[in-house]
């Protein structure tokens, strides 16, 4: 199945921009085709729209969604105003995926689950990037601990779902001011991971977040969502359980439903597919991320 998903991911990559330009389209994913209310075993390109336009005749030809793209059937799903992605595309993200792409479920053995953000490099070595509170259990982890894909809350078990070992993390300071919530894990082998991020494709390096910039994220819980950067250079208090932890130099996406629990560790990506941030916190109303260059610098890695 994974081979077919990879093929469809490539096809999707070629058509994503064109599809997103069409009226009411809010996202594109991969899921099982639904016919007459029944889920089939055929993988399809799922096109998320804010409302289905009817009848077909009213839609200008350039805004119609083709029934098939490069041999892959499409499935149009009405998601209303996008808050969360529908179950099919996100179900895939909670599965065991080998190789594992960015945007899927991951977690330290002692946590529930978060998101595998993307791969980062130091010399020739590639690491998985996510948060300290996902890969290092909020300072409780030790170098060499098992990292599971999917995360324990999604059924990941030791040892069969082990994909990496905790390599390094930036300790969270509960009484001081923090710059990042970040950690890296070393895959057990390079064949277990890929550079692709689900629903996005291969990222094109690092960028700086800017006010009002349109951004995307691809996360384990809410899938692909879109928003914009509303606040920069922010000092923020974030709750870790009952403990309040202060961060500085952060960015805020003031878009309801942009992320939920389990999306921590997602890469924040600009429209030109550069990674601009690492998501780590949020509420129903807003999402908080760290500018990616701060993260890379703190861990001494590159994209």
């Amino acid at each position, binding site marked *: 199945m994974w081979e077919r998903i990879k093929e469809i991911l490539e096809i999707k990559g070629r058509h994503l921009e064109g599809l997103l330009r069409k009226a009411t389209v809010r996202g594109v994913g991969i899921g099982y085709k639904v016919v007459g209310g029944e889920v089939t075993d055929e993988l399809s390109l799922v096109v998320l729209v804010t409302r289905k336009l009817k009848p077909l005749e009213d839609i200008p030809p350039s805004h119609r969604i083709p029934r098939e793209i490069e041999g892959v059937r499409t499935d149009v799903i009405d998601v209303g105003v996008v808050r969360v992605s529908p179950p099919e595309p996100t179900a895939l993200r909670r599965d065991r995926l080998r190789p594992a792409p960015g945007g899927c479920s991951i977690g330290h053995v002692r946590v529930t689950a978060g998101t595998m953000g993307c791969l980062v490099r130091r010399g020739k070595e590639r690491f998985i990037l996510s948060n300290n509170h996902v890969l290092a259990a909020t300072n409780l982890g030790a170098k060499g601990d098992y990292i599971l894909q999917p995360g324990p809350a999604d059924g990941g078990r030791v040892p069969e779902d082990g994909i990496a070992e905790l390599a390094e993390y930036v300790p969270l300071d509960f009484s001081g001011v923090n710059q990042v919530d970040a950690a890296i894990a070393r895959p057990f082998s390079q064949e277990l991971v890929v550079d692709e991020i689900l629903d996005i494709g291969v990222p094109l390096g690092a960028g700086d977040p800017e006010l009002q910039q349109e951004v995307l994220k691809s996360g384990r819980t809410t899938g692909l969502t879109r928003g914009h950067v509303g*606040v920069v*250079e922010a000092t923020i208090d974030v709750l870790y359980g009952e403990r309040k932890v202060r961060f500085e130099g952060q960015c805020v996406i003031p878009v309801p439903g942009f992320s939920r629990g389990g999306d921590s560790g997602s890469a924040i990506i600009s429209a030109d597919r550069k990674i601009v941030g690492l998501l780590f*916190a949020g509420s129903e109303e807003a999402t908080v991320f760290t500018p990616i260059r701060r993260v890379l610098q703190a861990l001494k890695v590159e994209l």
Partner: protein
Amino acid sequence: MTRVDLEKAREVLRRHRAWFFSLPGVVGVGISSREGEAVIEILLEREPSSGDIPAEIEGVPLRVRTVGELRAQREDVGAD
């Protein structure tokens, strides 16, 4: 946004950061923009009571936004 505005907002924010966090329900403060002008945005856990927060400080407009509790976002089933 002109550079002077942004620099001024940054400077005012830096000097008054502790005061912003002393206001009831404040969970964050940062720089935003409105119609090309830099503003200071204050993030609140709950709706403010009227009069809690002034409209501007040293000529820099203040804008409030209610965001609720900001939490570390790993899957919350059974977390912590």
